[in-house]
């Protein structure tokens, strides 16, 4: 059974069309990531699903409800972690979690929630004194305190350091194994790659592509070839020109030249041939499926060109 069904969703802000016809279906227990650049329509889409934004047209069902009805039952069964919600700064962390938890039918205990998000040692700190990363953890705590069946995470780890991000991922993994459905938006492709069962990429208000992270990598139909150039700057420029004739998105990353190509054999043949003929060493070869980030840049770049 679906947790979320969206058909033909359109959201206009005056003249501006933020969401231009999105169809999406998310199953119960699934972790779904919406990717896209700023202004792609991710947040508008997710806020309609949360019942916090009015849609212009289209049909939306969330856990059997139309979120526009503002049903109390629905609000009890979802958790929301937004970028734009604040919390009373004068409360302590434990007070805030207790206060918000008390309005749900099935609140988690304050200690359990603080333990889950890693704020136990800040329980008595005023919310106004938390660092940015701790504030996001408190947001997460208030999102899960009502034992939601469906959790919305709008860029949940923005501002986290790497270890805090890993903790947040572990938390989502743990909640997922409890059967919770998660819809998240993120800028971080490694986050989507790590967490999501399925990824939807939005661009200019549309869902341009959808699939599992592995799907998207395969569907791009291209392979990532990268190597190091042993010569001088002149050689580097020369081999880069050769690479540009063989594939797309040629770039220099940490001293390695990367390119995406449809025909690996031809590319390798041409590059090694160049190497022998020019007597310039090319080494540290790698031939791999592109990362989600490269696929994403490929897709969003493609949509922009249209």
């Amino acid at each position, binding site marked *: 059974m679906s947790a979320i069904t969206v058909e033909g969703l359109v959201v206009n802000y005056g003249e501006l069309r933020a969401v231009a016809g999105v169809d999406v279906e998310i199953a119960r227990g699934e972790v779904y990531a919406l990717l896209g650049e700023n202004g792609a329509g991710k947040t508008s889409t997710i806020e309609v699903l949360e019942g*916090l934004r009015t849609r212009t047209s289209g049909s939306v069902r969330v856990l059997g409800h139309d979120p526009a009805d503002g049903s109390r039952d629905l609000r009890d069964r979802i958790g929301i972690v937004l970028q734009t919600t604040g919390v009373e700064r004068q409360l302590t962390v434990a007070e805030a979690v207790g206060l918000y938890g008390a309005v749900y039918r099935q609140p988690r205990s304050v200690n359990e929630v603080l333990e889950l998000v890693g704020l136990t040692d800040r329980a008595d700190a005023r919310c106004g004194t938390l660092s940015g990363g701790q504030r996001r953890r408190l947001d997460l705590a208030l999102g899960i305190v*009502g034992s939601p069946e469906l959790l919305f995470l709008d860029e949940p780890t923005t501002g986290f350091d790497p270890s805090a991000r890993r903790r947040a991922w572990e938390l989502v993994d743990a909640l997922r194994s409890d059967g919770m459905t998660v819809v998240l938006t993120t800028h971080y492709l490694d986050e989507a790659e790590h967490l999501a069962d399925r990824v939807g990429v939005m661009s200019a208000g549309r869902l341009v592509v959808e699939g599992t992270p592995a799907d998207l990598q395969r569907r791009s139909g291209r392979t990532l070839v990268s190597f190091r150039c042993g010569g001088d700057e002149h050689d580097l420029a020369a081999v880069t020109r050769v690479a540009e004739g063989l594939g797309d998105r040629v770039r220099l990353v940490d001293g390695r030249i990367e390119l995406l190509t449809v025909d690996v054999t031809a590319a390798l043949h041409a590059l090694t041939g160049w190497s022998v003929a020019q007597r310039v060493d090319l080494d540290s070869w790698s031939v791999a499926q592109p990362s989600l980030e490269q696929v994403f840049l490929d897709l969003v770049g493609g949509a922009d060109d249209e």
Partner: protein
Amino acid sequence: MSERGTWPGVGGLILAQVRHQVRLFLRVPIGLFFTIALPLIMLVVFNAVFGDSTVASEAGEWPTRQFYTGALAAFTAVSATYTNLANTVPVRREEGILKRWRSTPLPVPVLILGQMLGALVVAILGALLLLIVGVLAYGLQVDVAALPNALLTFIVGVLSFAALGMAISSAVSSADSAPAVANATILPLAFISNIFIPLEDPPRWLDLLGDIFPLKPFAESFQASFHPIDPATSPDLGALAVVALWGMFGAIAAVRTFRFDPTPGARASGRRRQRGRQRST
């Protein structure tokens, strides 16, 4: 579908919200100062300066020291409701606190009622404090027969000013301008409403101006219950009607204009600020 248990009782939810609001109020020093401490300071200072004179009234001369307590207690109640809500609700809107509450299953009327009743509790505490100081230090006379009338007037006034505070909180464009709007509306009114200085023979138009706004009718009819010679035991219906009419107007405006989300412009800047904060950590 999983069994999610029963809803928390409405009474408990309201009580929790009121407690929450009062707790927040007590933890904000600036609100505490302007609402509770400042009227108390004014009571002491005004009495030190003018305390020995009298105010003329129909029933006879009224010692100023007794006059001030009732007026300032009424003013405290107005600060705790009107000024307090006009200041705090826009901040909560702009910081996304109202938006968060709206995303929870807390019924919206409970959220709004909680804010208003919280202000009401603060108003009662503040006014009581002033009255007690008045009785102990300035010879304020409390006639038990006049207390029901005082209470009725107080409740009507405080509810009306709470409604007006909610209404004005939707009218201000941003949290930054909220204190200015709140003070610019209430302070000039206080001067023409005999709160700080009892006006002796004011020009007719000034008198009338005071009468059509709710502060003077509220303060005067509340004061009248504490008149040393002839305490009012029954309400001044004309004055109460003016106050209640304003309150109803405020309630209708508040219900029609209440917003959870910041205005689109304020939203963008709030979001930028939030992003900036996150980057800096």
